């Protein structure tokens, strides 16, 4: 494996802005520019600008593209309208989650699959293997796109200053081709922050021009550049899973509480159907651990991997594990997502704690998400 980090088209710009960089799935990405809490709050109340060029784009074309994707993924891609997008997953034959994905339908017979950076090669390989027998083609377009995101309540106003595209007609989970700040872009109303926002797929050569135009248009609206640190706390507050934390190959979509993405009713077979049918029944009759939210009563922060324990009992029995945790800027308290035994998973369950480096701290069990924006 190569050890040299991959750089996005905006690398020099990030450095000129004083970004603290971090390795993320082999990419050198902005972690934060100044205060990650300020960046988080900017997205919740105004707007933030992200470089997400590490995400992996895979294009699928051909007369049987829809049928192929419905076979290769758990969702019913055949029902995705032109110009719409769908959150879905790709699983192994045994039902284990390979990745969570967004599939954009770009045309009658053209789709773009967006995978997590750390899984892009695995997803590409799986799609390439699964396309055999379909009249469709799978193309690696990871290097064809830079991805910028404008997220936050002010993002529509900022976008309107730099594009004539019909943003009012662009619903959540939809995408349309257009021109933004003079450069051709796929404009998608998607994000990973719990706020309204846009993701802009552009040629890497245009990324800097677009970044500068959005920065300028956003200045009056309080837009600031934002790194991956606040993206993580934003998605955590919004209860959105992150691959490698809430989602792994050891879990099915049903284990993760996301069984709704599996569409058994679709036409034809799909990879994982048999195993997922069994997983769905298991989740119904004898649920394993469930994904819940935890809110701290104290100030110490739970981190991924910390044990969830029964407190007040005799032995501090381990009843689960934290998958993601952080201080929540919006709630002003530490929060976590965790898998806990079903008996302890109901909101308000008494006697749940987290073992924070040897000390059992009390936590409140809540339903996800922690934060939902007012529409």
């Amino acid at each position: 494996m190569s050890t040299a980090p991959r750089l996005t088209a905006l690398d020099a710009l990030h450095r000129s802005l004083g970004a603290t960089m971090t390795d993320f799935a082999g990419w050198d990405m902005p972690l934060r520019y100044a205060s990650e809490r300020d960046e988080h709050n900017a997205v919740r109340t105004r707007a933030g600008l992200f470089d997400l060029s590490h995400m992996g784009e895979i294009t699928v074309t051909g007369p049987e593209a829809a049928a192929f994707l419905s076979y290769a993924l758990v969702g019913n891609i055949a029902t995705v309208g032109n110009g719409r997008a769908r959150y879905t997953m790709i699983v192994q034959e045994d039902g284990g989650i390979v990745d969570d994905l967004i599939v954009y339908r770009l045309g009658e017979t053209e789709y773009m699959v967006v995978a997590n950076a750390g899984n892009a090669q695995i997803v590409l390989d799986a799609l390439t293997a699964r396309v055999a027998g379909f009249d469709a083609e799978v193309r690696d377009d990871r290097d064809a796109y830079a991805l910028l995101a404008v997220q936050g309540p002010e993002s529509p106003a900022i976008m309107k200053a730099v594009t004539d595209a019909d943003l009012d007609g662009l619903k959540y989970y939809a995408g349309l081709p257009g021109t933004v700040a003079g450069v051709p872009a796929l404009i998608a109303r998607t994000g990973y922050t719990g706020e309204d926002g846009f993701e802009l797929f552009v040629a890497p050569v245009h990324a800097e021009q677009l970044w500068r135009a959005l920065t300028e248009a956003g200045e009056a609206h309080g837009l600031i550049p934002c790194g991956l640190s606040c993206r993580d706390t934003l998605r955590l507050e919004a209860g959105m899973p992150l691959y490698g934390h809430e989602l792994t190959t050891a879990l099915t979509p049903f284990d993760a509480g996301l069984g709704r993405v599996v569409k058994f009713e679709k036409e034809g077979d799909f990879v994982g159907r048999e195993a997922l049918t069994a997983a769905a029944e298991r989740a119904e009759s004898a649920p394993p651990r469930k994904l819940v939210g935890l809110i701290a009563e104290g100030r110490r922060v739970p981190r991924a991997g910390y044990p969830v324990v029964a407190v007040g009992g005799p032995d501090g029995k381990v009843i689960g594990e934290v998958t993601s945790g952080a201080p929540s800027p919006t709630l002003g308290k530490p929060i976590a997502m965790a898998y806990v035994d079903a008996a302890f998973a109901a909101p308000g369950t008494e006697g749940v704690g987290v073992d924070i480096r040897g000390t059992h701290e009390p936590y409140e069990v809540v339903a996800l998400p922690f934060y939902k924006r007012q529409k």
Partner: protein
Amino acid sequence: MSNPQQLRYSKEHEWLSAVEDGVATIGITEYAANALGDVVYAQLPEVGDTVTAGETCGELESTKSVSDLYSPVTGEVTAANQDVVDDPSLVNSAPFEGGWLFKVRVAEEPADLLSADEYTAFSGN
């Protein structure tokens, strides 16, 4: 950034003020504060605790991580900064001033504390 000349520094990125009436003030450097990111929780040693040079005596939590706090000297704690406990962001906004962490009646200090220039060379900042 610049590391104040009148302070001395440890390789664990703590700073130590000049000793006055036997007591020195201790904090973490701006370099360390920047590396941590926004500090959200500070667990400081308590007045009367004995701290030992090079050993942990508390912890600092930031958005992304938790770090042990080391004492650069050995001695008895005479004060802990309640302002930082109440508002840990002081560690980021004023690491060398209002963001000080605790004071120690110095019984013993190690010989390998660094000058400002030596620390700047050591940390690359």
